[in-house]
Structure formats: C-alpha cells, structure tokens
C-alpha cells in the first residue's frame, strides 16, 4: 500500500520567515493534494497537483510536484500567525482509485 512521509513532523517558525514542508510517496503519485487542518477540526483544501513539474500558488503558499522523485513540497513565504496549523498531504495510489492516502501531517507553529 502507498505510504506518504512528511517532513518535518513539526516546525516552529518566527513570523515573517519562509518555510518548506515535504511529502514523499513510496509509490507513483497520481494526484497530490495539500490540506490544512486546525487542531481537531476539518480539513481545508489548499491545492491539487496532477502533473509532474506542476507548480501552483495561492496567496503566500506555493506547492510543487516532482513526479520523478515522487515528492511534493509546500513553501510558505513570509509566514503569518494565520498559517499555523497542521499541513497534510494526500495522494491516490492508483489511477482511478478513489482512496485518498494521507501523511501523518506537519504541525506548524508561528511565533512572534
């Protein structure tokens, strides 16, 4: 079965600094999704990447997909307190398989 490993597991960043979160898959990626979760709450959709080399940005968050490395990265520029939370990557293990597998998440804390 597919496994997604996220690194780091937790991150403490000073407000205004940049940061990167990585997600590595044990198998070929057929779509990679990034979600954000506030503690104990539902998941908020951030971005979906489907093609190798694809890069998407939304406000200060940029995500890239490296199909060959079976890896995706999420980069936040000039972090703000509103960026704090748990970031989860999710992926489908097979084309046509609707089962979404998630990583264990990266807990991001922003300090003043």
């Amino acid at each position: 079965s597919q496994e997604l490993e996220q690194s780091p597991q937790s991150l403490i960043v000073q407000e205004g600094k940049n940061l990167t979160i990585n997600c590595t898959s044990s198998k070929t990626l057929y779509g990679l999704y990034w979600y954000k979760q506030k503690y104990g709450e539902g998941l908020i959709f951030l971005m979906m990447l489907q093609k190798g080399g694809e890069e998407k940005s939304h406000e200060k968050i940029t995500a890239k997909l490296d199909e060959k490395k079976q890896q995706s990265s999420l980069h936040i520029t000039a972090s703000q307190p509103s960026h704090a939370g748990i970031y989860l990557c999710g992926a489908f293990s097979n084309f046509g398989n609707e089962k979404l597998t998630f990583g264990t998440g990266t807990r991001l804390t922003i300090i003043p």
Partner: protein
Amino acid sequence: DAGVTQSPTHLIKTRGQQVTLRCSPKSGHDTVSWYQQALGQGPQFIFQYYEEEERQRGNFPDRFSGHQFPNYSSELNVNALLLGDSALYLCASSPFYGLNYGYTFGSGTRLTVV
C-alpha cells in the same frame, strides 16, 4: 453555498454501544467518503459511497458500515464500539471521480468511547 455538514459535532458513547454519524455533502457533489483520524495521525480511509452503493473500502472491520440516501447524504454506523474507535470522523464529498476535482471535507464528528 453550504459545504459539507456533519452531525453531531461531538459524541460520547460507552464501549459496546452503537453509533450513527451523519453527513450532508456539498451542493452538486454525489460521492461521499468517510475517514477516521486518530489523535496525531493522518485521516484513514473507511469507505466511499456513490449511487447509494459502497464503491471502495479501506481496512476497517465489518463493525463499520454505511449508507447513502437518494439525496446523496450519508450515514456511518459503528457497532460494538471499542475504546480504539475514539477518533475524529471526517466526511468528504466530491463530484463523481474526485481525482480531478479534489475532496471537500466537513468539520468532523469527535467520537469518544468510554
């Protein structure tokens, strides 16, 4: 436009009891998936419903069952509750073939088994 709605938000049950969780998908979505998220873990896929039938199932025992209604809403039932069933249960909806569209998640139901 309402997103995915789940009820109840919190629930406390006793070991051995049965529980039913409910989900209303986002308008325009006809596929509903259920996930279990234990504390400190990523969500784990339970099953998915489309056209009132279970399309796919994760590695969960038969104690976990579901149903989808003609209006696309769904229920998750768990029988003979165990302490280990304590978790956040998330419902996600999508148009058919969510791979191209992504999934919209609800805020979840926090189930505590004592």
